[in-house]
């Protein structure tokens, strides 16, 4: 009996270790592990993102035969938005020598940041995760382009001021923040508090517990009582459609409700029905199919039946955001190949590539993304770039651009980032000093 259990144990051990072993890689391919959550309460947002990311990589492999002839082996690791599973996925990605780790949840990012600095795996947390990690001097292995939640909060204030007619008009106004009662949801609070003090508007907080995501009745009653002039929604998953529905129900002017970019899913807005027309969200990528890159994806991937996304979902906002994230990976890989002169790059090369990433207007045009996103440039010290975003509006069927690309208040955000990065590394005790040299180009 003992021996059989022992054997079972070893068999299981062998099985699990072989599962984590690197796959037999062809000479000219690199491995890219992406966390996805196509299951669980947040899958509504996770599915279009996962589809977009996979389809862009597939398109690069199909159309161009990879990046400079190097195919990307893309593999999804299912997390269900659960930190425990994300950590498993990280360990697996590490064992399989991924070139970059893409955590896709704030919890997973926070758990991965210390590990990545020891294991030397770059983390690409696109506009989510730890805002302080935009400080490249303290966090050489974490990248958070094109902007952070703190930038988002400052954009919200700017948008509010623009609609009211100037920064001085903010005085005496009320801004409400509906947020998920978790670290992700509480991210914008410090910036909003600073700005509220500076411009003299009042900040009201409306937390939503994760268990009450679809049960926001009393929260909206408080909103009715407080009558905030604007609402900023830092929500995710099932919380967003419920918030939109409740806003409609409670006669809150829907165009005064602005979501963070993650509250800008098509399903989120669609839930409110016709009355949700006018719902807004910050955005840093364009929605729709009218871009050469999306057309290429349809031609090379979707029409050939290689995508799991139905054709009408291609071009939705979150789908395009997945495409954008994969574009960053591919462009960083291309940069890394250029810097190192190697074709098959590893994680350390990829970090250099990400740090020198510079996708300008011309390059965006080349890859079929003109007007799709603003140019992205990452430098040695600034791992985010604090790039422009715009306010998108739901027109009842799709997201449209409303207003210009606006610049976040970098001068407000940057000192906060540096202070917090310092705080983080000091508290960690013995945080590895940055030894990676900066690239000449950046």
């Amino acid at each position, binding site marked *: 009996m003992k021996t059989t259990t022992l054997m079972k144990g070893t068999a299981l051990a062998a099985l699990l270790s072989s599962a984590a072993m690197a796959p037999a890689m062809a000479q000219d391919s690199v491995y890219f592990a992406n966390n996805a959550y*196509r*299951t*669980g*309460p*947040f*899958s*509504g947002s*996770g*599915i*279009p993102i996962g589809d977009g990311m996979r389809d862009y990589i597939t398109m690069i492999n199909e159309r161009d035969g990879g990046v400079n002839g190097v195919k990307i082996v893309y593999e999804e690791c299912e997390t269900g938005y659960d930190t425990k599973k994300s950590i498993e996925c990280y360990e697996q990605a590490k064992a399989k020598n991924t070139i970059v780790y893409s955590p896709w949840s704030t919890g997973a990012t926070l758990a991965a940041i210390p590990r990545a600095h020891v294991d030397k795996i770059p983390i690409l947390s696109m506009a989510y995760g730890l805002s302080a990690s935009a400080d490249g001097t303290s966090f050489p292995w974490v990248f958070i382009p094109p902007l952070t939640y703190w930038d988002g909060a400052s954009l919200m204030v700017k948008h509010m001021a623009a609609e009211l007619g100037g920064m001085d008009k903010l005085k005496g106004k009320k801004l409400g923040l509906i947020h998920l*009662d978790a670290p992700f949801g509480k991210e914008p609070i410090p910036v909003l508090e600073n700005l509220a003090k500076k411009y003299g508007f009042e900040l009201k*907080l*409306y*937390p*939503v*517990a*994760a*268990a*009450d*995501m*679809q*049960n926001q*009745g*009393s*929260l909206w*009653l*408080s909103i*009715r*009582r407080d009558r905030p002039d604007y609402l900023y929604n830092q929500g995710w*998953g*099932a919380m967003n*459609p*419920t918030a939109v*529905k409740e806003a409609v*129900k*409670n*006669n809150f002017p829907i165009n005064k409700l602005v979501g963070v970019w993650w509250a800008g899913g098509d*399903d989120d807005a*669609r*839930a409110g*029905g016709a009355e949700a027309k006018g719902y807004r969200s910050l955005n840093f990528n364009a929605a729709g199919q009218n871009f050469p890159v999306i057309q290429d994806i349809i031609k090379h991937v979707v029409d050939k039946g290689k995508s799991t996304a139905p054709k009408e979902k291609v071009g939705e906002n979150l789908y395009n955001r997945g495409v954008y994230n994969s574009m960053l990976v591919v462009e960083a890989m291309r940069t890394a190949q250029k810097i190192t002169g190697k074709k098959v790059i590893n994680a350390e090369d990829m970090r250099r590539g990400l740090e020198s990433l510079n996708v300008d207007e011309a390059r965006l045009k080349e890859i079929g993304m003109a007007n799709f996103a603003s140019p992205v440039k990452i430098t040695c010290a600034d791992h985010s770039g604090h790039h422009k975003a715009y306010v998108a509006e739901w027109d009842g069927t799709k997201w449209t651009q409303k207003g210009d690309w606006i610049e976040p208040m970098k001068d407000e955000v940057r000192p906060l980032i540096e202070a917090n990065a310092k705080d983080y590394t000091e508290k960690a005790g013995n945080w590895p000093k940055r030894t990676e040299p900066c690239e000449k180009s950046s």
Partner: protein
Amino acid sequence: MSDIATRPAPSLLASPMVRFGLILVAILLAIAIGVRLDPTNTLYAIFVDPFQQMVQAPDLLAQTVWEGLVSGVLYALIALGFVLIFKASGVFNFAQGIMVVFAALTLVGLYEKGVPAFLAVIITLGVMFALAVTIERVVLRPLVNQPDIILFMATFGITYFLIGFGEALFGGNPKQMIADQLWLPRGAIDLKILGGLVTLQKIDIAAAVIASLMILLLALFFQYTRIGRALRAVADSHKAALSVGISLNQIWVIVWFTAGIVALITGIMWGARSDVSFALEIVALKALPVLILGGFTSIPGAIVGGLIIGIGEKIGEFYWGPLVGGGIESWLAYFIALAFLLFRPQGLFGDKIIERI
């Protein structure tokens, strides 16, 4: 062999009424003194200000109570599913939450496949019936006569299975409830009363009406039909029921099917309020305090419990929540239930627990 009530109460304060009254008086006195001596206005903010708000803006109070009422009815509806199964088979059905999601997803999924709305409802009912039969055959029958906790565990197995099965069939992305197609009303009625505006959502009214009808029908069903009587017999004693020729297996199928119907209605109502996704499963957890407060075996208990919790937590969150930064709704319900339980350990309407040695 003597009956002993749950715990012998302290002799001096034998009657719970007396104790309750004394505690109430003590609290009021303490508040009255405290408010007078309070330097930072904390006590004022806790004990006086909320009530002033209630009086000053009665329309908001009415709105809060209405919201509480509606969510209370909806909680009661979920709790009803638990109670039905607990009564008849002694199973604490952890899977009720996922059954809600599964029923709603089946309905919406069928509609998306082109089935007309009302036909989809009928087919979904068929699916729920098939589910009830399967659960009875595969899970309950082999586990007959096992301790409660084992059956509870088995329903967890069902939950896991249904999560995987449901997502594999319908995908995980949220879907919109086909409220219009089911002739559920939309829009709101604005009442200009109490010096302000009270908005009643038509869907909420519909939910309250349908839930009440449902509860009434179930009560009649339990009271006056043959099967209903058999159900109550099973609830009282499995062995005695068996000895008079009631088929346990048949009863279980009926009960689980009824719970399935309740799940479908719950799913439609919650789905119409937000949307249909696996996150709805979490809402079902809200039924736990309702259930515990009302007593596991009582249908009126589920209703009264639902209303107390619904109204209590809305008022608590609305008037006292801001004092601590809001979001207290997530735990307030449990404390309300706990406060009631300290006076009635078997729940408001639960069967009195009699322990013998």
